[in-house]
């Protein structure tokens, strides 16, 4: 496995979000994928502690569909974003899955407001038909336990 290939994949994912290709972004996820933005630092459990987002593939699809709905008040017009991915480290490869840690700085602009998010991100990538797919994505916002505006952006 080539670290550059992994980096390029993460940049590609970020680019899809920043160019508002949300459906193409969704296709990066496996059918059994989970997308998790925990509420608490070091949160181990998504079922008995709340999460800012904890989606299976079905819910993630609903999230993308909602963003396209003309009366999605908090999401339309779609935010303009920059997803800045850094510190990419391939940390583990087992049973075909690769664990990748990275950092994310996200600048969001929508409806006269600019917001900045910082996060530690972990992907679990899996090869399907020679291409990477995201089996699990975890986004730990630095201020997940702070007082947040409503979050209507995809990390």
């Amino acid at each position, binding site marked *: 496995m080539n670290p550059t290939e992994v980096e390029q994949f993460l940049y590609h994912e970020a680019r899809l979000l920043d160019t508002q290709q949300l459906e193409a972004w969704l296709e990066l996820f496996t059918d059994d994928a989970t997308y998790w*933005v925990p*509420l*608490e630092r070091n*949160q181990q459990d998504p*079922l*008995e*502690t*709340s*999460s*800012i*987002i*904890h989606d*299976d593939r*079905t*819910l993630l699809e*609903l*999230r993308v*569909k*909602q963003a396209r*709905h*003309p*009366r*999605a*008040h*908090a*999401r339309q017009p779609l935010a303009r974003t920059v997803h800045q991915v850094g510190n990419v480290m391939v940390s583990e490869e087992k049973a075909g899955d690769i664990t990748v840690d990275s950092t994310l700085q996200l600048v969001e602009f929508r*409806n006269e407001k600019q917001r900045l998010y910082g996060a530690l991100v972990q992907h679990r990538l899996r090869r399907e038909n020679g291409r990477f797919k995201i089996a699990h994505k975890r986004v730990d916002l630095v201020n997940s*336990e*702070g*007082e*947040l*505006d*409503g*979050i*209507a952006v995809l990390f």
Partner: protein
Amino acid sequence: MAADERLAMLVQADRVHRSVYTDPAIFELEMERVFGRAWLVLGHESQAKHPGDYFTARMGREPVLVTRKDDGEIGVLVNRCAHRGAMVCAEGRGNAERFVCPYHGWSYDRGGALQAVPFAGGYEKGKLPAGLKVVPRVSVYRGFVFASLSSQGEDLETFLGPARASFDDFVDRAPGGELEVAGGVFKHAYDGNWKLMLENHLDGAHPAWVHASSVAVARGAPEPGKPGEEHYYDIAVRQMRQNGAPDSVWDAIGMWTTPYGHGYMGDYHDDSRLVAGLGNPVFEQYRRRLVAGVGEKEADRILRVTLWNTIIYPNCSFMSQFRQLRIVHPVAADRSVVHTYSFRMRDAPARMFRDTVAFANVVNGTGSWVLTDDLEVYERLQRGLSSGALDWVYVGRGHGRDVDEPDGTRRGSSGTSEVFIRAQFGAWLSYMSKP
């Protein structure tokens, strides 16, 4: 014209003046006369179980400490050092023998009494303050902790009145009455007045519009599983779909208000539609535990209570059936912070709490499909209300058709009546008019 007469002009039978949402001077007066007087919900006893346990809370803008004292009673102290005014405890919770100020080390016992002062020789004997300011009135109703910054006023039971039934429902549903705050605290903020949240939570006319996008996507989602064969996404899909109930459903639910501005609505769910609802094996297991404690007849009565949102004016909103409680903290006329808590029934099957967490994520979570659209609308309200082009806000839906009930409540003529907003402003004016 006297200030009180001016206030009375702002709140009329079916309309209010926009300045009650936007004027900083009115906000300051609210902090003194509403939040400085009313009983405020601070939390739940389970957050401070043992002597020395404490958690930080706010009463309006005042930072306070809720403590379990050595005698086992709950006490509430203003979290401000009697010396130079620093917050003694950082935000959060813990257990302490003494509260020690980080600035000069003044320390206080669990009841707030001053214990030790470094460089004590520098002070005149007898001149030192007694301790942290003690919040004068504290009361607990079925485990929920209330306090008032005013030494005078009606007792808590009178204040709650018929709205006690909603807390009863919250607690009675738990086998053994055992409830605890669990599962993390969502904190969100919006650029809008604190009243906007309370005016939204009983509004059955808003979901079809505000939540149109989540209703639409949920309708297109895969069907929820049969009892015992649920998917993780079911509870989200069910709740989002339910927000799209036809107008006739919203009109048919009950809507009651009390003289203190509280309000509660009947349930618009058919229990079989929610996970852990009727026919679900986990729900059956839960029901059996409830029956074991209180008997078949009482369990049946408890499960037939149909209450959805309740507002305790001026700082709390909760859902007894899904065990969610929100506290609104006013920050400025145009800024509010909300803390959202989930509760676990200690002696119910674990799955029941998972449903509570899933429900919190989808409806009340900071990144949810539902809450985010509410917050967007609060901010648009605040921007619209900031315009001086128009003065009045119309709250007249159902006005003139409200029904006074024998138990002292006032019922809306339909479930979508704005009677609850009129009741909130009735209480507001009553607090604000007393010098």
